[in-house]
């Protein structure tokens, strides 16, 4: 994969919350039109990686190139412009509770474009149709189910037809049918819009269905990255355990354990 093909490139990325390091020397790149699924257990650093790639969090080391531009080095105005090419669908939909579903979806267009209000309305309705939410335009977010909120969040994320879509846990909390529909929608968006999509998920079935490549994180480190076949054939114990849904077994240091339990006494 050459630099020219990579829409996003992460080089030697480390990230920390204060003193606590959560990502260590991550290298990966995502091609235009590719679907990359990031997998790993809770606390593996998936969401932190996403936050770094979005420029919502500055890394402690390394660079993140978006279309060749290091998002850690651009100024706020340039970052805001780059973000217009990025769509983000958060776990809970993250809609504004004071606006109707339709107005939530129209918000980015009203904020960032000079499009006519008629065009904006039709664009929002096209996206609502796509998400099977046509009848819910005038409802408030509080009147929607979890699955509907997620789809409404996705509608808002793609309203400006972004070059790259970040999707945090698309299937979490959804019934199997809705989950399958959402997987298909992700594939359709890539097909029709040549959208580059980065999905963070725990759901194996969904990951295997939509991914061109899967990156597996464990304790903040990139264990492996490759095709679905590569991941299925991977012999690394951490990947095998993730695929087989085996619980993590942390070897116990008895002295440290006792010390933690009796700290301060």
């Amino acid at each position, binding site marked *: 994969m050459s630099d020219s093909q990579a829409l996003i490139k992460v080089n030697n990325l480390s990230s920390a919350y204060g003193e606590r390091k959560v990502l260590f020397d991550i290298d990966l790149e995502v091609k235009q039109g590719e679907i990359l699924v990031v997998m790993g257990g809770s606390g593996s650093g998936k969401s932190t990686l996403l936050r770094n790639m979005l420029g919502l969090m500055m890394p402690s080391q390394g660079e993140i190139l978006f279309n060749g531009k290091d998002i850690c080095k651009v100024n706020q105005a340039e970052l805001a412009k780059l973000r217009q090419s990025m769509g983000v669908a958060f776990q809970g939909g993250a809609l504004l509770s004071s606006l109707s579903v339709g107005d939530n979806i129209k918000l980015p267009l009203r904020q960032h*474009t*000079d*499009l*006519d209000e*008629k*065009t*904006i309305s*039709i*664009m929002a309705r*096209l*996206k609502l*149709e*796509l998400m099977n939410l046509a009848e819910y335009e005038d409802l408030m977010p509080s009147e929607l189910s979890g699955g509907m909120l997620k789809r409404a969040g996705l509608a808002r994320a793609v*309203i*400006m*037809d972004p070059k790259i879509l970040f999707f945090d846990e698309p299937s979490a909390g959804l019934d199997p049918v809705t989950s399958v529909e959402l997987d298909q929608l992700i594939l*359709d*968006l890539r*097909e*029709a*819009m*040549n959208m580059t999509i980065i999905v963070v998920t725990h759901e194996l079935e969904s990951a295997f269905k939509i991914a061109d490549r899967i990156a597996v994180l464990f304790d903040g480190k990139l264990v492996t990255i490759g095709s679905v076949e590569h991941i299925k054939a991977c012999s690394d114990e951490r990947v095998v355990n993730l695929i087989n849904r085996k619980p993590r077994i942390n070897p116990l240091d008895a002295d440290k354990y006792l010390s933690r339990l009796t700290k301060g006494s």
Partner: protein
Amino acid sequence: MSFDCSDYKQYKRLHLSGEVDLHNSPDVRRCLLDILNRKKSVIVDFSDLTYIDSSGMATLVEGLNIANKMNLTLTIVGAKDAPLQVLQLTRLNQVFHIVESLEDIEE
């Protein structure tokens, strides 16, 4: 993106080339609405179009709605590749009258 407007039979032909997106779809909209305001049926020629985003599609939907109300027609010709996939994804291929080539346009 570039576009030009010419006469074809009794229609106005709006020929789109390259990519229609958020930045240039307002220009396409102005041209399309101008044609319809002059009570002309319109052929939107996609044959040299490589990409159209939802602002472009929304413009065409608005145009179709106006054309229907004025008993005019709006026909898409030559849609292929990504623009055709967008029409299919949004199911607008079932809403617009779409033909393969200009030869398929009726007098």
